[in-house]
């Protein structure tokens, strides 16, 4: 399905917010694709890092629904190689923050089986709750 994106105050506000949170100049992205080519996790993603950058430049909030921002391991390969010096990991982090601040619980603690939880590494559990609850 072809999507239509509307440019308006809301989209521009979204762009500004990501810019502020990440501290990155999003309009600098040339869409060269170095980030995508460098990303070790890209095969697992639904949109590529460069697609993420594109949507952010346009102010398209759909980007928040992408799995990509959660699969990003913040390894900084993209950052290290970006010819325009953009830190895409920071952009992903900014997107995660926005999503988290929306306080949506993707993981309900009541659904977690206590017995099963005892078997899980504590770090993983804490990280999962940190990432997936609002």
């Amino acid at each position: 399905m072809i999507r239509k994106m509307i440019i308006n105050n809301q989209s521009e506000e979204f762009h500004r917010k990501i810019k502020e949170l990440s501290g990155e100049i999003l309009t600098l992205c040339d869409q060269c694709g170095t980030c995508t080519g460098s990303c070790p996790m890209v095969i697992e993603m639904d949109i590529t890092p460069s697609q993420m950058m594109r949507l952010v430049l346009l102010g398209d909030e759909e980007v928040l629904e992408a799995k990509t921002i959660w699969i990003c391991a913040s390894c900084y390969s993209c950052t290290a190689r970006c010819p325009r010096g953009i830190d895409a990991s920071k952009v992903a982090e900014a997107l995660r923050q926005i999503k988290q601040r929306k306080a949506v619980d993707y993981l309900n603690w009541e659904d977690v089986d206590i017995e099963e939880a005892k078997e899980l590494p504590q770090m993983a559990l804490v990280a999962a709750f940190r990432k997936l609850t609002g």
Partner: protein
Amino acid sequence: MRIGVYVCHCGGNISDVVDVKKIAELAGQQNEVVFVRDLEHTCSEEGQKFILEDIAEHKLDRIVVSACSPLFHEKTFMKLLEKAGLNPYMLEMANIREQCSWSHPSKTTATRKAEDLVKMAIEKVRFDTPLERNSIPIGKRVLVIGGGIAGIQSALDLGDAGFEVFMVEKEPAIGGKMAQLSKTFPTEDCATCIIGPKLTDVATHPNIHLYTYTEIKDVKGFLGNFTVTLTRKPRYVDLEKCVSCGICAEKCPVKVPDEFNLGLSERHAIYIHNAIAVPRKYLIDDKACRQLNGQRCGICQKVCVQGAVDYEQKPIEEIITVDTIITATGYTPFDASLKAVYGYGKFANVITGLQLERIIATGSSGPPLRAIGNRIAFIQCVGSRDEQVERENCSRICCMYATKLAQLVKRINPSREVYVFYTDLRAYGKGFEEYYKRAQTAGIKYVRGRTAEIQEDPITKKLLVRTEDTLSRQIIEGEFDLVVLSNGLTPSASTDQVADILKLARSADGFLQEAHPKFRPVDTLVDGIFIAGCAQGPKDIPDTVSQASAAAARAIRLMNKGIYEIEPITAFVRPHLCDGCEKCIGICPPKAIQMENGKAVVNGALCKGCGLCCAYCHTEALDLAYYTTKQLMAEIEMALISKKDEETRILIFADNTCAYRLADNVGTARLSYPAETRVIRVPSSSRITPKMMLYAFAKGADGLFIGECDYKASPYSNSGESIKRNIGIVREILDEIGSDGGRINFTELLASLLTDYYKTITNLIKFAKKEAKPLTKEMREKLLTYTDRLFTTTRKESE
């Protein structure tokens, strides 16, 4: 007559395939050949030394060099002949490298063809006559057409170098488009601030005569002697008396849109062209003025304390003579209303790049010409790279001027959101990429996609822009306060007009055609006329200025010596044969033939030596030096003399500019083609008369391939038309005797299209062998008797 023949090995390039010894032996058997030598490298210093010594020792008076293409080394050997005290035109070259050893791998075939080529050259050299390079005096006066930045730069360079410049500008003030700009990319210098001093320099330069509000009516003559008729349009204000106090304009009751601000503001009927106008004098717009249109007014005359207003002024014609001409007629922005989907001229908030330039330029010192809102879209490639509006070329500057304007509007108000919708972003120049990056850093949003359409909200007048972002593959829609169309550059109306007057060729995009895209980028095909700036094609200011300086340098190169040498390969008239039919007068492309005392006379300075006229001369009074009828007939005969009955043979008449070069290029690329071909070199194939074609068939040719430059690349305009006419006459005769007119192939070529050459030859051979109606011995004999009839045909035409 003592002919010397040299056969070159070319270090194996020739001798590996062609039996050089055999060729040398054959050459020695020809009449009047008194000396033959084969050399490893004829063009080398050693080889040249041999020739020099041989000429002296054996008293040689004409030379045949069988080696590479004449396009490669003809000049070398001509110089050598001069050094040896011979006339340089007593030289012929047989092209046995490109046309033999490089294109026919079989040793026997290549050698056989080489034998013919050498015989052809020997036969031609017999009829060579010494030709003198005439020199004509040339002065130091230059006409610069156009007072934009290109013309200004050329004029200043020439003026500073001590040449006398006549600058003609059709507008009331000089400065051109650059004077209208806000800032210049990528350095953001203020345009008026940097051009202002140059305007004053032109006006005050002791060597520059400035003619503003003046048009070129006519140009006659040639390099060293152009007669230019100018029309000075009436300003109705005395240039001497006006002190530009401006009281007249204050009192003038008429208001019309101001062209300088592209209709964004108004001016009076009496006005000054712009704020930095040079000359800084008022003038009356005769279309708007009441007094000049039969109504009572006369206010400006009354209020002018200087008494400068004169309603009685009339256009004045003035004639000047100059030695060279620089054409700097510039461009016109593409008429954006032609791209109807963007609604320019219909939607209030759709403007062009140049209009935004004016808004920004005037905004710095006064109230803005109009509001521009907060969300702004730039649409690129309007009238560029678009077959819909018949503009295929890239306009080169729009990416960068949009990048500049986008930054300027954002800088004035950083809360503005600026989008640039582009197809490809081309930031090719020095500092451009960095400038583009600066715009990105400033937050300009570049969206890759050509906007499909714009809709206007009838109430708010806001614009709904719909584009695909081809990077994220989704439709982008947004409401904008202002849409700026980055419209491309098209040739200006004056470029068309001046090109017609000066008879300059234009390239497919409509801009003026340079003489050679690589090596003669500011010359035209007319000697002594040069091009600078956007008249030649879209370019930015630095490129324009470089080109303008180059044009000035090229003009100086011609004028500085004080004399100019004319190529002696020109048409000439045998007066006793001329019957004064005047047929040649009209068809000569550079109009070099005149009637004097009932006889045609060729002006050697104007004649380009194409030989087109000769085919029209029914008394054969006209002939072309170095390519005389006698010589070409001899070549044709020799090209066919070795042909055996069962063989097929194709003669190729190849023009020097494209077809001959193409044949060379095919050889250089080592592309093998059928060896049943013999090439005869001519300046233009329009030199080949119907009589020659018939003679070729009579002597055994089975097909003729007439190659001529594509009209776009040809130095001779409309040669194709003449060739078609000549061929038509011969085809008719062939059909009439029961053979086949299709045996003549005429192809317009470019020197680069190698496969065209191969295909045409193979098809023609196939056709002549198998498909064409036969051409029997009897028919060939009959053809010989047709020359008389031929003259009746041409005579009828001239009646």
